[in-house]
């Protein structure tokens, strides 16, 4: 289900995150890339070089906005200035959909600048879904929410993470940016089967997929975006594509960033799975599908 209402009925292929070390290469060599994802906050400014570069990229490439500080799950109201600037950028990029995270990160007007895990409670479902609807109505562009990597869970949680995700997106009627690396990281940190998560997500709402590398420490895994994609993550990606069909896919590489060609080549490995899934997805599939939990 490549094109759906959550990704503006687009049929994007494999993209990479637009990062500064690659600016010169992209602007001078003009490599063929399906699309770029930008971090919205880096361009929510009034002028200067970032916007100049963005405009040049927009002239030649498809661009999708990805945010890191909307904090759909924060109990406090969104900052009107943030929304105003974001809408201004949406008009500039004409992004077919806009993503941000299913998390919180600010309270009482103070920002942690981190993607903090939600307590999976019914109150949080309502607050988060209301906020997503509000943002979507204001921005007038499809909003999709991304599952985050987490390192902690709360006692008060009343459901699993995937149940929470499903409840939120149903109530908000929004799409999902499924980050399969984040699912893997969280599964290792919290001890659940990542395939159960992948199998429980409503495929018709998946607008985009993220892949990335992570770092393994002795007692936990950290979502560092500084490595190639690891095999267990590719396996989750394969399973997701098996369920959804070809879906817009984006590689995130944010630290120890290698050459453009290396990052792009890593992203293009996704084609192995996308090409194999060019046929309509088959459901149900695989035995681990049966383990999926849905409310």
């Amino acid at each position, binding site marked *: 289900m490549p094109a759906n209402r959550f990704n503006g009925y687009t049929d994007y292929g494999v993209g990479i995150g637009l990062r500064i070390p690659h600016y010169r290469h992209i602007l001078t060599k003009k490599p063929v890339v399906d699309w770029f994802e930008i*971090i919205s906050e*880096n361009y929510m400014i009034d002028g200067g070089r970032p916007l100049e570069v963005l405009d040049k990229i927009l002239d030649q490439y498809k661009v999708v906005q990805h945010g*890191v500080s909307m904090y759909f799950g924060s109990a406090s109201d969104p900052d009107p200035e943030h929304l105003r600037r974001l809408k201004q950028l949406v008009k500039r990029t004409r992004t077919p959909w806009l993503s941000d*995270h299913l998390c919180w990160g600010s309270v009482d007007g103070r920002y942690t600048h981190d993607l903090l895990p939600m307590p999976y409670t019914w109150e949080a479902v309502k607050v988060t879904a209301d906020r997503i609807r509000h943002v979507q109505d204001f921005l007038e562009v499809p909003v999709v929410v991304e599952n985050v990597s987490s390192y902690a869970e709360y006692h008060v949680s009343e459901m699993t993470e995937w149940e929470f995700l499903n409840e939120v997106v149903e109530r908000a009627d929004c799409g999902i940016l499924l980050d399969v690396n984040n699912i893997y990281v969280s599964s290792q940190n919290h001890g659940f089967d990542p395939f159960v998560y992948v199998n429980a997500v409503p495929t018709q709402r998946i607008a985009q997929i993220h892949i990335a590398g992570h770092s393994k*420490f002795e*007692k936990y895994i*950290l979502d560092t975006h*500084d490595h190639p994609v690891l095999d267990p993550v590719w396996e989750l990606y394969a399973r997701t594509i098996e369920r959804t069909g070809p879906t817009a896919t984006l590689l995130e590489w944010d*630290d120890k960033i290698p050459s453009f060609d290396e990052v792009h080549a890593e992203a293009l490995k996704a084609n192995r799975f996308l090409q194999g899934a060019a046929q309509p997805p088959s459901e149900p599939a695989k035995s681990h599908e049966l383990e999926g939990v849905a409310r």
Partner: protein
Amino acid sequence: MKHSMKTLMVAAAVSGLLSGAATLQAATPHSTNPVLKAGKASFGSASLHQDTSKHSCKGKNDCKGQGGCKAGDNGCKGKNSCKGKGGCATDGSKHPS
């Protein structure tokens, strides 16, 4: 300042404004026109080096802390990316509280 003098001064300024605007209109990007004395490039030479972007959604794992690892965690061992930046501060040398 006498009014006549002020008028002359304003005329001089306006003349400069017009002249500068004409120069600007004629200038091409990256022009070496001598009138465009911008001053010192803040990075020694104007370049992409001054580009910055602060936001990403990676977990923070730079040399200041290895993303939450502590002195005893194996995750920190064998890392050499901190060379020249003061190490991973496992010796208590930072942040007296």
